[in-house]
């Protein structure tokens, strides 16, 4: 795997081991023992068919209350991620780009981001509004976005592409250490896909230490975001790991082969 230049520390930033989880209140685990290690600056793709558990993994990492962890561990920057509330995880540097971003009626993107940055400050410390405005404008320029976009209410009446761009903008402002992209590419036409990929690549170039976990059903986004590693997830576990060639094999053969393996 390629280590980005200047990256001295080779220990994983994210270590998942033996992770099992289910929908809260359900009797059966969806994740059946996931092991994964991601080092600083690496981009890992997790591919899998529908129902393989890849989106569940993303939600468990972000701390979605609808899921229950039944075993295993997740260490992020040496801390037990599973013990943290979703907001604490975000403040530690985890960012999840949602597959289905949620509408927050009446709340502008600018207000939302200002509140998120304010939340990182110590009690009694006030975010400087001029600094924030400057940062927001600079981030939007970086992503070729119209500044008026920030005045719109979060995801309210957005097209699929706009919702995904909003996720990328949030990522650009919050500058995470680990970005989990939960099927960010699904439902996007090729132009929107390119815009999202361009955003991710721009941020990766700016922040070489940022790790990316790219969760996807399709190979096509990997034409635009180059992964260091590709994992295939089937039946709640990672069944194969390798380099970019794994994605190409999948493209050619589909998931059928793996289904047969796990069924047998």
């Amino acid at each position, binding site marked *: 795997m390629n280590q980005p230049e200047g990256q001295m520390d080779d220990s994983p930033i994210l270590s998942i081991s033996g992770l099992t989880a289910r929908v809260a209140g359900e009797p059966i685990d969806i994740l059946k023992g996931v092991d994964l290690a991601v080092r600083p600056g690496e981009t890992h793709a997790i591919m899998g068919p529908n129902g393989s558990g890849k989106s569940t993994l993303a939600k468990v990492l*972000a*701390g*979605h*209350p*609808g899921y229950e962890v039944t075993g295993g561990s997740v260490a992020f920057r040496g801390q037990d991620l599973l013990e943290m*509330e*979703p*907001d604490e*995880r*975000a*403040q530690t540097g985890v*960012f*999840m780009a*949602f597959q289905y*971003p*949620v*509408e*927050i*009626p*009446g*709340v502008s993107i600018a*207000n*939302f*981001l200002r*509140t*998120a940055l304010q*939340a*990182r400050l110590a009690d009694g410390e006030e975010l400087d509004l001029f600094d924030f405005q400057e940062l927001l404008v600079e981030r939007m320029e970086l992503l070729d976005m119209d500044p008026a976009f920030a005045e719109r*209410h979060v995801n309210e009446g957005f097209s699929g592409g706009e919702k995904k761009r909003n996720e990328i903008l*949030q990522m650009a402002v*919050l500058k995470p250490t680990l970005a989990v992209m939960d099927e960010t590419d699904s439902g996007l036409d090729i132009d929107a896909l390119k815009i999202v990929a361009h955003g991710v690549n721009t941020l990766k170039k700016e922040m070489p230490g940022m790790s990316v976990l790219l969760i996807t059903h399709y190979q096509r986004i990997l034409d635009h975001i180059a992964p260091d590693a590709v994992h295939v997830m089937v039946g709640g576990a990672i069944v194969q790991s390798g380099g970019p060639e794994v994605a190409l094999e999948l493209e050619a053969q589909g998931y059928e082969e793996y289904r047969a393996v796990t069924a047998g």
Partner: protein
Amino acid sequence: MANGGVATAEKVERRAVGPAAAAEAGAGDPSWLRARREEAWALYEAMPMPSTRSEEWRYTDVGRLLDFDGLAVAQAPGGGPGRRSGLASEEALASEEAPVSHVGAATGLPAELRDAMAQDREGAGRVVDVDGCVVLAELDGELARRGVVLASLRDAARQGLEGVESLLATEAVPASDGKFPALNAALWSDGVFLRVPRGVSLDLPVRLARWVSSAGTAAFTRILVVAEEGSRVSFVDEILSPDMDGTALAGTTVEIFARGGAQVQYVSLQRMGRGGAYLAQQRTLAERDATLDTLNVALGGSVGRVDLNARLLGSGANSDMLGLYFGDGDQHFDFNTSQDHVAPNAHSDLLYKGALDGDSRGVFRGIIRVHEGAQQTDAYQTNRNLLMSERAVATSLPNLEIEADDVRCSHGATVGQLDAEALFYLMSRGIGRRRAERLVVLGFLGEVLSRLPMGGVVEKVTKAIEAKLRHG
């Protein structure tokens, strides 16, 4: 000031809610007004207290929530004619040409009221009412020269100002309208008379700041606004009180006339303390091509009931009716609205939104009435509620009554909980749970404020909601 006058903090006299108070209230009034009060008192006594057996009061047991026997009517010191003569302070008189932007001479007022007034931006005029008595009425000098009248209603009636006798408790809210309209018509101690002459535009709002000082007080106020043809005016009516261990009643009757092509905004900000009971009857009459918009904000008090009736009397008339309520603890808010489309080709659009926390309760009952012949009516009614606790209750009763066939009407009502997915989304960006909840609530209620872009009011209400969310 054109109408200056500051009362010193003399002790307010009180009478129990009864015939003596009714007689006292009329002392010094012209005979037509005394006769009107007597008639109103007779009506009040003849009508039964509204009970929960009646549809309109089904969810607000006003007889139980309000102990009328324990209340005493606040009266102006001394009662009789010229009761405020000699009370005008030299300070107020000396500031004749000063802009109406500061609290100025009103330094004897309670700190809470002064704080609320200090938050306001510049205005065209200001009235201060303490326990139902006007202690200050001031208007921009230039506007006074252009014929705008802003006065204590009591003074306006006594001085026989044009429009008062013909429009007070006659066309808009007559005593015969019900028990509480009758009570107010009999006992009102003071209020505001605002008349804007034909074609005159007020660029800045006129503000009324009201204070109810203590438990046991019943303060009855009337507001009469007449906007002549093609004039434009905004009126902001804010009421406060301290937190109280007992009950204090603020009875409020609002009558607004928008003549042809006039543009009027009326905003009510109810921010009373614990123990406050707010009982308001509001009626707006919009004539041909007039715009008459209202916003009712209910944040404070223990019990609030607002009866709002918008009458669209002329073709091309338009009324936007906005409401916002945020309850916690055991607060109880009840809005009873009606949109009366009397004339054809008029438009009304109602949006009331409420957030309810703790054990609070919100009631919305609204009706669109399209009268016979009111073709090409456009009338909409929406009530949305957000429940922030499992114990809070929202009741929403939208209704239509249509007697014309070529109309566009719709109504809708929703009651929902805080969206768990929305909270998770906000938290996943590092925002704590409480702050995330606040953001969702502010966004939800903010839609109402965004529809009335009135500088100062939006900031003030937003701040008040934020303060309430912090302490919740």
